[in-house]
């Protein structure tokens, strides 16, 4: 956490020397230009004048902290000048770096320069942290800071590989502490500096990706929803850490220590940080939306970057066992990843999966995700047919109260299951029964092996053959036709909605003679056609 008071440690505070305030110049372009030109001329001899420039920041800060005016008003007033000031000071330091004034660490100039340099960096970050409204100033600050990092990398350690760890860590903390932006509905953050950092730097350069996780030490920080949202935003970004091709890994800095290629270190660090979020005592700071987002990106953005993904086992199992269908469905993906690659043995997996088939399932946005995974889970021909039959029967049962889009995805799903497990065909064709037959299926049974579904029949699907939507009805008729087709491509059926259904209808052309009319006559609309209604 960068605090104003913290700066007192390394550098002399301006507040400790109130006498300096009279000497302070004015925050105007003319003054800055004159000062900058002077300093650059005498850079080799005297650098103390830089202080007069840096002090100019205080003028702004005082107004800002006094809170006499609105934040945006102050900004519009000072923004241009501040930017000019930033650029000017940056010019001075870039000249200093180019003149290799930082090389000789014993000289007086070095100590002074270093002092002012730290002060300048601090101011840059401080502005980024406190300004909460979106403005170009803080984005420019970020750009300048990143350029300074480049200089540091080249100059601070001679010709030896060097990464400006401390400066970068400060930046990370600034990003995390920045007041700008808010938590979005999907649990991510809209912080403008963070977004800028992601698009311009993080997503492009491998070393920044690596060191971001390396320097991020969440255990030290105070956890909050805001922090988690920012971390998630970064994690959600695509990285090239796992890229095998070294050439693709573009680096922001030139001379880097060999640590940068140590994947294990990265994974360790990543795991540490993530688990610190997931295992935090105060679970309430992890918002529900963030929880969902974590589960959503788990299999792609988290599991591959962990050293021991099995550590997620408890987290996933707990999520799966939660009585929230949505969370369970979302955790399925990660769980599947663990089962597949890390040999996780999940007891009663299918029982739990069967329980997920409840009334909410087919009204959820993520039902296609569930169906895709379930299709994989039920793919094995070694599964007992009573289990498959239970799934089929349950889905059919749910379909009679579902929307056409859900039905459209269920029908090919059941078809594929029946095709793969021919023993379940008895659900459609059962001739051997006595006259006193009654449906043995138990809808309330939790265990798919005990539902007796295999002795039942899919009357629900037969009813759907008379569905009001002509295409759904026609699709349902596949069950009374010979099973000649090998399988349906599920993807074609998963993403239908009322919108797309209607769209395919409205694009149809009307025939010349119009549409078929009702020939039956009704005396009145309300009363005769619809009895017991009146205007």
């Amino acid at each position, binding site marked *: 956490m960068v605090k104003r008071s913290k700066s007192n440690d390394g550098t002399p505070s301006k507040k400790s020397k109130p006498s300096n305030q009279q000497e302070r110049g004015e925050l105007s372009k003319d003054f800055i230009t004159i000062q900058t030109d002077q300093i650059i001329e005498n850079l080799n001899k005297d650098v103390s004048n830089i202080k007069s420039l840096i002090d100019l920041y205080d003028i702004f800060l005082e107004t800002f902290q006094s809170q006499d005016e609105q934040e945006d008003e102050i900004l519009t007033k000072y923004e241009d000048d501040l930017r000019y000031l930033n650029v000017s000071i940056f010019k001075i330091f870039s000249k200093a770096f180019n003149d290799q004034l930082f090389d000789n660490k014993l000289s007086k100039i070095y100590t002074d320069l270093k002092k002012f340099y730290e002060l300048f960096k601090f101011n840059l970050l401080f502005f980024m942290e406190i300004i909460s409204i979106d403005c170009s100033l803080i984005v420019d600050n970020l750009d300048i800071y990143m350029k300074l990092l480049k200089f540091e990398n080249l100059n601070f350690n001679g010709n030896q590989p060097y990464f400006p760890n401390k400066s970068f860590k400060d930046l990370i903390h600034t990003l995390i502490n920045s007041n700008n932006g808010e938590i979005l509905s999907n649990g991510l953050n809209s912080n403008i500096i963070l977004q800028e950092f992601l698009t311009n730097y993080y997503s492009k350069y491998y070393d920044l990706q690596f060191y971001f996780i390396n320097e991020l030490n969440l255990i030290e920080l105070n956890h909050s929803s805001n922090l988690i949202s920012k971390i998630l935003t970064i994690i959600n970004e695509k990285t090239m850490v796992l890229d095998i091709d070294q050439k693709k890994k573009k680096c922001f800095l030139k001379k880097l220590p060999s640590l940068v290629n140590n994947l294990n270190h990265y994974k360790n660090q990543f795991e540490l940080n993530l688990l610190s979020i997931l295992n935090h005592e105060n679970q309430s700071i992890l918002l529900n939306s963030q929880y969902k987002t974590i589960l959503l990106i788990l299999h792609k953005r988290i599991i591959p970057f962990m050293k021991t993904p099995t550590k997620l086992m408890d987290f996933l199992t707990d999520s799966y066992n939660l009585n929230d269908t949505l969370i369970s469905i979302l955790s399925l993906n990660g769980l599947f990843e663990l089962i597949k690659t890390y040999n996780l043995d999940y007891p009663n997996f299918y029982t739990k999966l069967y329980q997920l088939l*409840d*009334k909410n399932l087919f009204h959820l946005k993520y039902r296609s995700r569930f169906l895709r995974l379930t299709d994989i889970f039920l793919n094995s021909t070694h599964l007992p047919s009573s289990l498959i039959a239970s799934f089929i029967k349950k889905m059919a*049962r*749910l*379909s*009679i*109260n*579902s*929307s*056409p889009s859900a*039905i459209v995805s269920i029908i090919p799903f059941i078809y594929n299951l029946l095709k793969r497990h021919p023993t379940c*065909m008895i659900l*459609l*064709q*059962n*001739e051997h029964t006595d006259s006193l*037959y009654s449906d043995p299926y138990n*809808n*309330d049974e939790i265990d798919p092996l005990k539902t007796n579904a295999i002795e039942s*029949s899919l*009357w629900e699907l*037969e*009813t*759907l053959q*008379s*569905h*009001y*939507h*002509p295409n759904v*009805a026609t699709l349902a008729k596949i*069950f*009374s036709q*010979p*099973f000649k087709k090998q399988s349906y491509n599920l993807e074609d059926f998963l993403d239908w909605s*009322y*919108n797309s*259904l*209607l769209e395919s*209808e*409205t694009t149809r052309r*009307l*025939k*010349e*003679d*119009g*549409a*078929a*009319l*009702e*020939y039956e006559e009704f*005396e*009145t*609309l*309300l009363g005769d*056609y*619809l009895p*017991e*209604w*009146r*205007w």
Partner: protein
Amino acid sequence: MAGSQLKQLKAALKENGLVGQTNVKRKNTKKAPSESRRDDKQAVLEKIREQFNPFELKVNRKKTDLDTRSTKGTQGKPGISKQIGEDARKAAYEAKKKLQNKNGIFKDRRFGENDSSLTAEEKMLQRFTKERQTQSSKRNLFNLDDDNENAEDDEDDDNAFGLTHYGKSLSLKDDFEQDADLQNNGDDDDDDDEFMKPKKRTLEDRESGNHEPDEDEVIPKKKTKAEVMKEVIAKSKFYKQQRQILQEKVEEKIFDLDEEYDDILQELRTVPKQKKPLEFAANDGINYEKSIKELNLDRRAAPADRTKTDEEIRKERADKMRELEEARLRRMEGLEDDREKGPDELDDDFWIQGSGDEDHEQQEQDDDNDEDEQDDEQDDELIQNDDKPKTTKSLPVICPESHEEFLEILSNYKFEETLTTANKILTSYAPRLQIGNKEKIGIFTVILFQHILYLSESDLVSNEKFSEIQEGLISLVKTLSQKYNFELTESLRDKIEEIHERITETLQIEDAEEFPTISDLTFFSLVGILYSTSDHYHLVVTPTSIIMGEALDQIKFKSINSLIGGIFIAETFLKYQRISKRYVPEVTFFLQKALLSFLPIDLTDDSITSTPDSKFQLPKNLTSSDSIEAFKITDLDNDDLNSNDLIKSSIFNKLISTVDLALDTWKDKSSLLEISSPFIIILSKFIEIYPNYKPLSQLSLKFTRLLKFSKDERKPLTLQSHKKLSIATYAPKFEENFNPERKSYDENRSRQEISKMNKQIKQERKIALRELRKDSRFEARQQIKEKKEKYAEYHSKMAKILNTINTVEGAEKNEYEREKKLRKSKK
């Protein structure tokens, strides 16, 4: 056979019984009748001869003689066959040569004979013009003056080579001759005229069928000059006579007319006098003139259609209904989307409603032959036409082109007059009155439809006559929809999209109460009343069903108002399915939700698939008596519903009856048990709470009764009892006469045929070429031979001549020598 050739011959002859004893009786002598024996003998002799001339026979020896089959072409007589060919060629050549330069060929040089592009008619025309051209050019060339002496000859030429029809020349004859012909046919007055005689004779010949008409024409008599002059004089005399006769006739006619003139004048003068007494007579009857006019004005009796008896009308209607029902059934099965009848075929009754009488009069104008009456009628019509604008002028109505314009028009009238105004527009813009009216009325139909939706939202709902007007407009639109189906359907489809947009808006934005509105509900029910909702696929009903389904499935029914909308939509949806009984999952989903939102306790069961969006409190003392009243659709906009217990209980009652309707609609579904199980659970809870509420217990009873049936009849599915398919066989095909050595084998029959044919063609071609070559070679040979002969002949001739010359010369020489000797000796 042994021995010399002679011995062998003898033996052979003897064996065949040709030499030696001929009268030896053999056992099998009755072989053939005696007549043919000689021929036999000849044949036998021939055979023996052949046997003894082995050089003519050529045998193709086989390398292996395995099979016993006799193969063709092993033996042949190349010499003989060659000779035969040679002989045939020679004969042909001789024949050809014989005819060379002697035979005429017929060449058809008629115009256009070989031109297929010309029709027979055109051909004739072309030939005729060609003929005329040649004639005229001939005349122009050689005839300096038109009427010369050669006229007769020319005519003859024409007749000989010109076109004829029934033996008569088509070319225009000399006018004089034609006249003469006519005269000949008409009367025999001019028999004496000499120059007419030949012509007449030819005519007579033709008539009598004597076929020597050309005799005179082909060999025309050469006329002397005197004769010609005589002819000219006769001609002029004849013309003069003709003119005189004509003049006489004219004069006679003028004289006759002059004589009759007075009579005519007299008659003309008497006409008005005759009319007067008539008028006087008319005065006796009262308003005779008037009644005459009236009678004239009366519509002429026309053969009217026989008035149909009630029975016939009923039958006709039943037939039509049956036809429509059949078409509907076919559509319901999804067998056809096409409509059986076009909208124009439907009855025209609509127009009779408003302006019946006028139309009838205009329609049934008679066109009579009597001019007087027609005139009168026209006058009458004029009067009518004068009248009509007067009536319309007093209340001018303009057909609106948009709903705004219609509202503007309506602002001049009271609300109660809406229906009459609409009818007025429809009558004054009836399509038959003017071109373009049909389009206008089409637009007006759409406007009326929009107006119905507009009215349903307006404040006029409170008006006493509102429902009457609204229903009147609806029935108007329903009648119009038959004729302006296309326009109406298009606008409805646009409306569907608009409603869908509002639904999505309501779903996305919280508290956006864009849907359902009263006009939406009106729209849904209107679709049901206008269109055939039982169709398997329908351009309007299917998308409407989709948005209704979406509304029931997706909309959160948080307020009691929106719940009313939901119930209305659910009931309309069920009405759509009253015939086809299709299953609508959204309706069951919604009904569960609606019922649960009235249930005071939380109920969770695995079979219940929906959860209430909000809870509504029902009055504690729910009884059946207070909620029988019909339910108002306009309550949707009523704000203080939540506090009104009466309305809430009536909504609940409505809901129960909707569930009842759903049960009725789907009672035959195979999964009725599954569909109704959540309802039974919910209903039983309700009954626990409201044990005295009758509709609930009635519905519950109905459920249990139907479910009992359903349970008893339940049988496992047998959807896959298809006809067994035979297993595909892979037995090899056995082919008779298959020869593996034949490379030309092809299993494809048709390809095989083709290759066979190709081979034959190739062979035939080869043979034909060989024959041709042989022919040409033979010809060349023959020509050389002929040439040689010719030369030989020539040389021998020359030699002969030389010889004679030499002989003559020799004789002369000798003579000379002798003379010389003689002279010498004389010396």
